[in-house]
């Protein structure tokens, strides 16, 4: 059965595949180790520019800003890049997803013009300044203060879990502008130039041994008023867009990566031995492989369905929480299975390349890294509350202010 458009999509796929085969760097996994150093940033930047040359750097962006692909085309791009295990644009992840979603949703025309082309050109790495030591799951209780002083807001406070902040040029910052208002109504959203004096960034070493996360100490940091995004006090609402983008659209790419990782698991099951025989001959292993294959198929469809909904309706909703919960827990199950098959070898001290996907084939490290998604972007407990309250309409937990 040929559906109209299939031929067009096949031609598109051939074009992307040819481009990817010519351009995806080879051997990068060995070249760039576990350190996010300047050399690695240069590599990320050059890969972004390479992708931009092909027109694939920001596939999910609107046509106006250099994207304009249909959902099916985006999926094809991700499939083809994943197939060759292309490096992920990890340093530009926040810029391409979070900053884009936030700026197009709430930014002024001037803010969009200033930042979006620069992001696409690889000139701006972005990070997020949301969480604080005392404001994790309860993000709305954040205490970093921004006080208006003439043409500036003066910011003081501490942020944490800011991935890539050490190399970032800009930060999406939430700060409290009205400490007397109910906690969600006193927050404003800023674009913070990371070269501003008063910002002290310190790396946090993660359980994987890598140090992507950072703490950020802000002391009398002056942000020009024109770098406020959206209306003053509207920060919490706009932040939901940023978070939904993180929970939703980003996973479209990650789902394709995961389906490649699924083929690695099958390879692993062929190599691994149980009682001297290949693990893939073991009935329970075979069942588990099928279970995961089914789940990966569901995830891919779930993402596409969600994005189709977004395109139809405009803006992400609480449904993104379903994708986040399902993706992260599936990622953990797959990596866990990998660890169980890979034996002692996976416990040997190694490092996963920074540009790798969440699945690098270093099963134990990938398993440890899976908490980036279980906990990051709002813990799955928080997501379950979002699903319960905003999708199913269950009553909220009584709130103590």
């Amino acid at each position, binding site marked *: 059965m040929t559906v109209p458009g299939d031929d067009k999509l096949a031609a598109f796929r051939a074009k992307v595949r040819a481009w990817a085969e010519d351009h995806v760097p080879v051997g990068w996994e060995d070249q760039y180790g576990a350190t996010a150093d300047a050399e690695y940033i240069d590599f990320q930047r050059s890969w972004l520019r390479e992708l931009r040359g092909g027109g694939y750097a920001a596939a999910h962006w609107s046509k106006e800003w250099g994207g304009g692909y249909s959902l099916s085309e985006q999926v094809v791009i991700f499939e083809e890049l994943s197939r060759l295990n292309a490096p992920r644009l990890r340093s530009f992840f926040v810029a391409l997803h979070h900053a884009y979603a936030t700026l197009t949703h709430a930014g002024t025309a001037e803010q969009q013009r200033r930042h979006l082309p620069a992001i696409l050109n690889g000139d701006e790495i972005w990070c997020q300044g949301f969480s604080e030591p005392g404001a994790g799951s309860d993000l709305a209780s954040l205490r970093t203060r921004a006080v208006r002083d003439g043409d500036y807001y003066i910011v003081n406070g501490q942020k944490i879990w800011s991935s890539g902040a050490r190399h970032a040029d800009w930060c999406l910052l939430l700060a409290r502008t009205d400490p007397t208002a109910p906690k969600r109504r006193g927050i404003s959203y800023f674009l913070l130039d990371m070269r501003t004096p008063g910002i002290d960034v310190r790396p946090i070493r993660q359980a994987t041994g890598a140090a992507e996360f950072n703490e950020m100490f802000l002391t009398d940091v002056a942000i020009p008023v024109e770098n406020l995004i959206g209306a003053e006090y509207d920060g919490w609402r706009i932040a939901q867009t940023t978070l939904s983008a993180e929970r939703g659209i980003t996973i479209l790419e990650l789902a394709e990566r995961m389906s490649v990782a699924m083929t690695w698991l099958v390879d692993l099951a062929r190599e691994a031995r149980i009682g001297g025989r290949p693990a893939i001959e073991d009935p329970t292993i075979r*069942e588990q492989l099928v279970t995961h*294959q089914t789940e990966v198929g569901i995830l891919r469809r779930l993402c596409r369905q969600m994005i189709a909904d977004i395109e139809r309706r405009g803006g992400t909703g609480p449904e993104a929480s*379903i994708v986040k919960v399902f993706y992260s827990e599936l990622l953990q199950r797959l990596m866990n299975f990998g660890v169980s098959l890979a034996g002692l070898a996976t416990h040997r001290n190694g490092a996963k390349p920074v540009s790798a996907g969440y699945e690098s084939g270093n099963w134990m490290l990938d398993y440890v890294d899976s908490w980036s998604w279980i906990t990051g972007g709002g813990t799955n*407990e928080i997501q379950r509350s979002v*699903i*319960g309250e905003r999708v199913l309409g269950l009553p909220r937990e009584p709130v103590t202010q």
Partner: protein
Amino acid sequence: MTDLDVDRDELRAAARDMLGRASTSARVRELADTPDGFDENLWRLFAEMGLPGIEVSEDFDGAGARFGDLAVVLTELGGHLASSGLAATTVLGGGALAAVPGHTLARDWLPRIASGTARASSALLSPEGEPGSPGLRASRTADGWRISGASGYVPDAGIAELLMLRALGDDGGELLLAVDRDTPGLTVMPTPMLDITRRFSDIAASDLVVGDASVLAAGAAAASAVRLLLDRAALAAAADALGVAQHMLDMTVEYAKTREQFGRAIGSFQAVKHRCADMFVAVTTARIALAEALAAYDAAPADATAAVSQAKAYTCDAAAQVTEDGVDLHGGIGFTWEHDAHLLLKRARLDQALYGDSRTHRRAAADLAWVPAAG
């Protein structure tokens, strides 16, 4: 694509509306106490809506829609704990005859199925309910076949006029036969089941003699028709289970919103809320798994087996989990006979066990994907 693109949302809404009125919990429980569990009124409503003929070809006065359209209705049947022969007649009866559209029996019976004037079912399983090999044997006679043996868990055989029998011939090939239920030599014995919302029978054949005219397909043709029927049956069980799971989710969320303890609705407690969220994720992902397999089946039925097996296992396991969670979250009331929770639980678990359990299906899918396991 067929010319007739069914609006599935509309079909779902219509089926839901009709079943909401005709298949109430009280009615389902009344039927459980009748000998054959058959609801004359419900069947009449099915026929008025054209449901028995939804997938029957237009050549035989049906609507010519796809299996995926029929599955929308099957899911609603599950959600309303309804039965009355519709699933058996469409999935197994019409499905078997449609595999041999040129056959006299197809020409005779499909229009009757489409119009709702006849019901049918198929006996595909061994007496223990295994889909692997038939429990009926056929030996060649001068002008037909002599059938003996037994087949178990035949849905709604008690209210079917026509029964399809899968048998293993003495030449080693499979046979698919169609016989009147009242043919001498064929015994249909109701099987009491814990799922009181549906009816199954064990059938036994002893010196059942049929002519060649009753043979729908033989040899490779029979084997592929049986393969197709088993895939349809698995998809139908999954579709039913999805409806059951959705119903349990809705019922549980409603209960969590209204039941109060410690001065507030129990759904405001995370211990309850998060389990509801998990049920929702399970139902949402199961719906996707099933939709994928239905699309694969409708695109190329013979190539859909792996997708069908994956969806059967995933959807039925999800429904089993969701119904278990639902009983939990209802507390004591969920453990009473008067509450519908146990009806849903039992129906979901039976769907999971029917036409190959999850383990069987996953192993089958694995064998299609990777070189079969040794031994």
